[in-house]
C-alpha cells in the first residue's frame, strides 16, 4: 500500500471496487433469484409500458356472445352475401387483372412476384385434428410422461414453440360461460363439422363431427411474425406473399407442436382447416398477445399488426396469461389511418367502437370497429390479392431498432393526451391516401437482397441470441 494513500483516495477506490463487484454479481444473483422463488420469469419480459389487465380493452358481453360458425364469415359465405352475379363478376375481374398485369410486367405483379407467391404457399403440412401422430410417445419409449406445474408447463411450451418459429405465445383456459364461446360451433367449409366437447378419454375427427375431450381445456395461442418490409408493398402480389409465407410457417409449427405434445405424453387438438377451431384474434386478445384495433384485427406491442395467429387445445395444464393494455384501442380512436387509407372504405370511421355489427359475417357480443367485409373482399378481387393496405399503413407497423418507436408507443400507452400529436406527426412523415398504391416500390424489394431470413427480425420485441 502506498505510504501517501489518503483516506479520500482509499474510500474512492473502495467505492469503485464495490460498484464493479455489484455489477458483476447482479447477473448471476438475478438468475439465482429466478430459480430460488420458483416462479419462472417470462423471457423476455414485456415492455414496461405494457400492462396486464383482468379484462381486455375490448368490451365483451358474454351473455350475448355465442359460438360462431367459421363459414359464416366472408371466407365461407361471400357468394351468398354479395350475390352469385357479382361473385362471378368479381372473380372474373380478378383473373383478368392478374393476367393483364403479369403480361404488362406491372411492379408487384411481374412473373417473379407471381412465382414467389406460388412458392411460399406450398410445403405446408395438411390439417389433422391431432397432427401427424407419427412420433413416439413416452409409453413407446418405456418412460413416464412429462409432468410439471402449470407455470413450468407454460414456460416449457413457450420455449418449444418459440424455437419452432412462433413469435409470441399465450394461454387461455376455456370457461363454459366465457372463452368457450370463442371456439367455433362449426369448422370451415366444406366440412362444416360441428365441434363438440364431451367427457371422453380422447377426441376424434369423426365422419360428421369433431369431438374434443372436456379435459383439453387449455388453449395455446401463438403468433408468427410477418415481414413488414414486404407487406409495405401491399396490395400487390409481392406484398401479399408474406401473408402466405407466414401461414405456411404457422401451419408447419402447428403440426410440429402436435408432435411435441404427443412425445411429451399429452393430447393436443388443432384446426382441421385453415382458420378453423376458434376465433384467433379473439383468443390472442384474451391471452395477452395484443389488443383488438380499428382494423378489427390484432395489434401487438412487439410487432404491431405484422403477425398471424392460431390456436390449439391441450389437456396439459397451463398457467393462463392475462390480457394486456398498451393504449391501442385509445390510439385507434384518434388515428383512423387504416380506415382513411382503405381503398374500399370498408373499415369503420366512427370514433368510438360499437356493439352493432355491419353484417352477418361478424359475431355480435363485443364492442369493436366492425367492418364491411364484403366491400373489403370486393377490393381483394380488384387488386388480385388479400390487400393488406390497412396493415401496411398502421403507425404500429414498425420495427424496434430505433428508440423513437419505443418512445412513441410508450407515450401512446401512458399519456394518451398526446395521441393526436403522434397521429399528426405520423401523417406528416407518411402522408397517405386511399389510392391503393403500395407505400414502397415493389421492384426495389427484389434488389434489396440484404433482408433477413423470411424478411423478419427475430430479435424484435426484446429477444436475445
Amino acid at each position: 500500500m502506498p505510504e501517501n494513500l489518503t483516506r479520500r483516495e482509499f474510500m474512492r477506490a473502495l467505492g469503485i471496487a464495490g460498484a464493479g463487484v455489484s455489477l458483476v454479481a447482479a447477473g448471476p444473483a438475478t438468475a439465482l433469484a429466478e430459480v430460488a422463488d420458483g416462479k419462472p420469469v417470462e423471457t423476455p419480459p414485456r415492455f414496461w409500458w405494457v400492462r396486464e389487465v383482468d379484462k381486455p380493452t375490448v368490451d365483451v358481453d358474454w351473455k350475448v356472445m355465442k359460438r360462431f360458425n367459421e363459414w359464416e364469415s366472408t371466407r365461407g359465405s361471400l357468394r351468398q352475401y354479395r350475390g352469385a352475379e357479382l361473385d362471378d363478376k368479381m372473380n372474373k375481374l380478378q383473373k383478368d387483372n392478374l393476367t393483364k398485369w403479369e403480361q404488362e410486367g406491372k411492379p408487384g405483379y411481374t412473373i417473379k412476384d407471381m412465382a414467389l407467391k406460388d412458392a411460399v404457399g406450398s410445403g405446408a403440412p395438411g390439417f389433422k385434428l391431432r397432427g401427424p401422430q407419427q412420433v413416439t410417445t413416452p409409453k413407446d419409449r418405456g418412460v413416464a410422461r412429462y409432468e410439471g406445474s402449470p407455470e413450468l408447463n407454460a414456460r416449457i411450451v413457450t420455449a418449444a414453440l418459440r424455437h419452432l418459429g412462433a413469435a409470441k405465445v399465450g394461454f387461455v383456459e376455456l370457461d363454459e360461460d366465457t372463452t368457450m364461446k370463442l371456439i367455433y360451433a362449426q369448422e370451415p367449409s366444406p366440412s362444416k363439422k360441428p365441434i363438440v366437447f364431451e367427457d371422453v378419454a380422447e377426441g376424434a375427427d369423426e365422419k360428421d363431427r369433431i369431438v374434443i375431450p372436456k379435459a383439453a381445456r387449455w388453449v395455446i395461442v401463438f403468433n408468427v411474425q410477418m415481414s413488414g418490409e414486404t407487406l409495405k408493398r401491399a396490395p400487390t402480389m409481392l406484398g401479399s406473399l408474406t401473408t402466405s409465407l407466414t401461414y405456411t410457417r404457422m401451419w408447419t409449427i402447428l403440426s410440429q407442436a402436435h408432435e411435441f405434445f404427443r412425445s411429451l405424453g399429452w393430447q393436443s387438438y388443432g384446426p382441421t382447416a385453415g382458420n378453423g377451431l376458434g376465433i384467433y384474434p379473439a383468443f390472442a386478445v384474451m391471452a395477452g398477445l395484443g389488443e383488438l384495433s380499428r382494423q378489427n384485427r390484432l395489434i401487438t406491442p412487439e410487432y404491431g399488426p405484422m403477425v398471424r395467429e392460431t390456436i390449439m387445445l391441450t389437456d396439459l395444464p397451463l398457467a393462463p396469461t392475462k390480457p394486456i393494455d398498451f393504449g391501442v384501442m385509445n390510439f385507434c380512436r384518434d388515428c383512423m389511418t387504416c380506415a382513411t387509407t382503405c381503398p374500399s372504405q370498408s373499415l369503420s370511421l366512427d370514433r368510438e367502437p360499437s356493439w352493432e355489427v355491419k353484417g352477418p359475417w361478424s359475431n355480435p357480443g363485443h364492442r369493436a370497429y366492425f367492418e364491411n367485409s364484403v366491400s373489403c373482399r370486393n377490393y381483394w378481387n380488384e387488386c388480385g390479392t388479400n390487400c393488406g393496405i390497412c396493415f401496411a399503413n398502421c403507425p404500429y407497423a414498425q420495427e424496434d431498432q430505433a428508440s423513437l418507436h419505443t418512445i412513441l408507443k410508450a407515450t401512446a400507452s401512458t399519456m394518451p393526451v398526446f395521441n393526436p400529436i403522434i397521429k399528426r406527426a405520423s401523417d406528416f412523415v407518411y402522408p397517405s391516401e386511399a389510392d391503393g398504391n403500395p407505400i414502397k416500390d415493389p421492384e426495389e424489394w427484389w434488389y434489396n437482397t440484404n433482408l433477413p431470413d423470411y424478411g423478419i427480425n427475430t430479435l424484435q420485441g426484446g429477444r436475445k441470441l
Partner: protein
Amino acid sequence: MVWFILGLAAGLVLAYVIARSLSGRLTVHWYQWLLGVIAGGFVLLAVQNYLALQSELEPKLATFSLLAFGVPAVVAAALVWLIPALAGRGHKKMGEAKVRPA
C-alpha cells in the same frame, strides 16, 4: 463502433470540462450542466435514431428524427453559452447605471 467513438468523445468532453472547472479556469453553473446533459441526450437520440431508421430502410423517418432530436440538441447547446452571455450583458448594464456620473 459508432457508439464506442461517441462514448469516447462524450467522455473526453466531460473530462475536459470537469478538469477545467475543478482547476478554477472554467465556471460552469448548475443550469449549464443541466442544459449540457439535455443537449448530449438529444444528440445521442438523434444519432441512434438516424442510424437505426436507416437500417430499418426508413430514410424519410430517419431525416425527420434527425430534425426532431437534432434541433432541440442545438437549441439546448446554444443556451449553454447564450444564458450566461445574456446574463453578463445585463450585469454590465447594471454596473454602468451604478457608475453613471451625477
